[in-house]
Every structure is written in C-alpha cells, then in structure tokens.
C-alpha cells in the first residue's frame, strides 16, 4: 500500500528567488526504509517538510503539485492531523525536548490528543521498552547524554504510534557509536513494526547498512532513486555530492576485476565475498 504519493511537487520559499523543489514525484510503500541524501541546500529537508505539512502550513511560499499521506491531501490537512501518521525528528535534541523529565517529555505530544492519564502512562511505558530506555524513566533531561536525549526525543515521537517516521539528520550531534545505535533502532522499528522510515543523513557509511532504498535530491530534483545497492553502484560513476562510504570507494578501485557484483555495504559482506574469491 502506498503511504506517500507525491505528484509534480514544485515549491519556492517566499522571499526566495529560486525553486527549492522542481516537479518532484515520488511513491513510498508502507514499510520501506528510505535513505535520502544529497548536497546541502539541495532540497532534502524541503521535501521532508512537504510530507509532514510544515510546507505549506508553517513555511509559506509558491506551492504547486500534490502530496498525499495515505488519503490525506497534505496542503489541505492541518499538521495536527498529519502528525498522527507522520512523526518527525530533527537534528538537535535541544530543540525538541520541552520538559525537564524524561516521562513528561515523552508524554508531551499525547497531552493534546485527548488520552486519559492511564492511556498516556501505558504508551510512555511501551515506548520506553521498545527503545530499551526503561532505565531512563525517572531521570531528568539535564542528566542525559546527547545520544540518550535523541532517544527520548524519538520516544516522544513514537508515543503517538505514527506509521511513518521522518528523521532529518538525527545523528548530526551524536558521536559515532550512538549514531549507529540509533540507526539500529530505526531498523528494528522498521522490521518489527513495519514503520516506514525516511532518513535524511550524510553519514552514508552507517545508513547504508540499514536502508533499502536510496534517493538523492540535488538542486530541487530527485536525481537518483534506486534500491540501495544499485544506488551505490551509480554513485561510483557520478558522485551527486554525497559522502561515498569507504567500502564503496574500495569497490570502485577494484570493480574491474569483477570480484564484487555490486558495492558491499558492510565489512562482513566485503570480507566474505573476498574470501570466496580467493579460495579459488
């Protein structure tokens, strides 16, 4: 089932001379894990905003085309409605934590939805468990590390049970190991709960291990939209301004020997293919 359908989307921020998105079309099936990358200012964040409704309801401008999330036409549906289906996580945990304690912050979004206290407590308990942060339950936000804060922010988003989660560079402020852990949780959410994940990130070396589809947005257009491995094969030819993972760079140099059919995305994959080749 298609959870997101975008047709001919064109958008220009008001006061801006150039178009941030030019005639973009895109379909997303439920349960996909999409990695969106591309040069800064290329339109990735703009695209994400059009899905949750920040465009056109929060950011105004010249808007043409259609964006459907399930059967809701985003331009005609308030963000309050869309956010029941689409969760959105930003880069900086500082900007999206509003309370002083963990549980209260997770419950923040629930307080406006008409749940009673027991229902809220149940949901908070549930997301703490899913994200493996039950030990953080009684803690104060200022005691937490960056990675823990980002998980709390994610828990707050999850509490509403959204079917789609968009994350805009969620690892930007995280150290590498915390970043990898976050990616693994996203994978778990995707596999166990069939949550559609749209991850915007520059850290392709980490994200390539969890995503199934690669989309590159550059200068307002989708210049690449392929399953993850094919996507990386193409990057070898044309950079598109993205951080090419080290393994893919190695693949690029030894492609002509025909050892690897497509770019290996993990060290395990690389070594087992190389091992098999060398056994001959």
């Amino acid at each position, binding site marked *: 089932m298609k959870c997101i359908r975008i047709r001919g989307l064109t958008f220009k921020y008001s006061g801006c001379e150039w178009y941030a998105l030019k005639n973009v079309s895109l379909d997303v099936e439920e349960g996909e894990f999409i990695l969106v990358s591309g040069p800064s200012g290329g339109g990735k964040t703009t695209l994400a905003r059009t899905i949750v409704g920040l465009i056109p309801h929060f950011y105004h401008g010249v808007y043409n085309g259609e964006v459907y999330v399930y059967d809701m036409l985003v331009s005609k549906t308030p*963000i309050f409605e869309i956010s029941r289906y689409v969760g959105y996580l930003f880069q900086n945990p500082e900007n999206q934590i509003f309370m002083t304690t963990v549980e209260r912050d997770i419950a923040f979004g629930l307080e406006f939805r008409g749940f009673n206290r027991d229902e809220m407590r149940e949901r908070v308990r549930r997301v703490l468990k899913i994200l493996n942060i039950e030990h953080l339950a009684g803690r104060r936000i200022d005691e937490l590390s960056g990675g823990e804060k980002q998980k709390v922010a994610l828990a707050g988003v999850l509490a509403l049970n959204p079917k789609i989660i968009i994350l805009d560079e969620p690892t930007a402020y995280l150290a590498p190991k915390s970043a990898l852990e976050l990616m693994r949780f996203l994978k778990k959410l995707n596999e166990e709960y069939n949550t559609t994940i749209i991850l915007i990130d520059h850290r392709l070396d980490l994200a390539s291990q969890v995503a199934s589809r690669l989309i590159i947005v550059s200068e307002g257009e989708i210049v690449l939209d392929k399953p993850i491995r094919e996507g990386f094969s193409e990057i070898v030819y044309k950079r598109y301004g993205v951080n090419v993972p080290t393994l893919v760079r190695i693949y690029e140099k030894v492609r002509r020997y025909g050892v690897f059919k497509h770019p290996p995305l993990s060290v395990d994959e690389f070594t087992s293919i190389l091992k098999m080749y060398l056994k001959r």
Partner: protein
Amino acid sequence: MRRINIARFLEFEYKDNIIFKLDPRVKLITSILYMVLAIVLNDVSLLAIMLIPLIVITLLARVLVKFAKSMLTLSPFIALILIVNYLTLNSLTGSLIPVLRFILFLAAIDIFFFTTSPDDFGISLEYMRLPLSISLSFMLALRFIPTMATLVNDILDAQLSRGLKIDQGGFMKRIKNIMPVIIPVIILSIKKSIEVAESLEVRGLNPYSKHTPYVELNISKNDILFLAINIIIIVSLVMLSILNIRFFCF
C-alpha cells in the same frame, strides 16, 4: 573572563529537598502573597522582619547562595535606588524602604523560580485556569533560558577569540564593542525560536484542543503546612501594619 550570569535570576537547577518537592501552586500563591506584601507594607521594621521567613525558605531550599549571588550582581542597581531616594527624601529609613521592597520582591520571585521547574510552573498556571497558550508560553520561555545563556556565551567566546576587547574604552566604545555579540544573539534567537516552533508543531501542539497534563498535582501535608505557616506570617505582618505597631522609632 566574565561569564554571563543574567540567566541565574530565573534558572531552575534541581536540588533534592522539601521546598523543591512542594506543590508548585502552593509556592506560586505564597510568592505572590509575599510580593503583594512587600508592596503593601510601609514600615522599614516590618519590611526588615519580612526578610526572615524568606531567608529561612531560601536556606531550607539551599538556594541562599544562589540568591546572594544574584543580589551581588544587582548591587550597583540596589545602591542606585538607595542613593537616589536618599537624595530626594533625605531620610535613611525612607530610602531603605524601596531598597528592601526590591530585595524582598526579588526574593519572593527567586524562591519560586529557583525551586520550580518550567514544566511545573506551566502546570500550576494551567490549574489556575489560565489559557493554555499563556501557560505554555511561560513554560517554554523559562525552559529555554539556559539554552539562550549558553548561546550568548558561545558567541562571546567566538568574538573574544577574534580579538574583541570588551573591558576597554569609554562608555560609547564599550557599547560599540557589544554589537558583535548582540547582533548574532538576536539573529540566532530568532532562528532558534523558529526551530522550536517547528518542533512543537510536528509534536502536535494545539492550544485549542483539550489538554490533559501527564502529571497530576496533589496537595500533601507538607504543602498545607507550608502554606499555613506562611499565611500566618503574612497575616500577622499585615495586622501589625494596620495596627501601626512600630518596633523602632526613628
């Protein structure tokens, strides 16, 4: 190098003691009553006596040092009030009144804000039937004070590292030298507020829908005791004021 301490006036820093655990509504009412009292009382001795319960509370809450520091930062201002009033009124007691009022007023405010988290503040406003948009605005403003303070410090650090000198020169020069700090702070504050507004939107902030706070406020024995003691003190002082009893005759 001086670190910016303006934030210290309203900043909440968690401590584990009875005062912190009191119901925020009780603290709010008590603070407001003391503030009103500070304005209503007209006698130096009574105002001076009023200092006692407030200092006791700050001691119990272990925020006395913090309060003292904020008073210290404001000492030039306090001295100014003292001097201007003395020159106009020509009476020491007369000029002490506004000074004491100022200190007491601040003490009452600080007791509340030092010991109550922004979210508790927001909830107490809500329980007092204030519209959601107001309680949320206040809560968020308080919550982001430390963030803003860090921002100011970061900008200051960056500009000092580019050779900016802020302790030099006459008044006009110093004002000019603050521009490299003020302008970026203003720009970044605006950016930040947009980012936070965005976050609130996608989390489903809706000031028009029914709001069910996750936390339930409950009055405990300690709360009733605290409120009772303070009301007795306040009422006594009011009575003393009405009856015109003076302790020191000047």
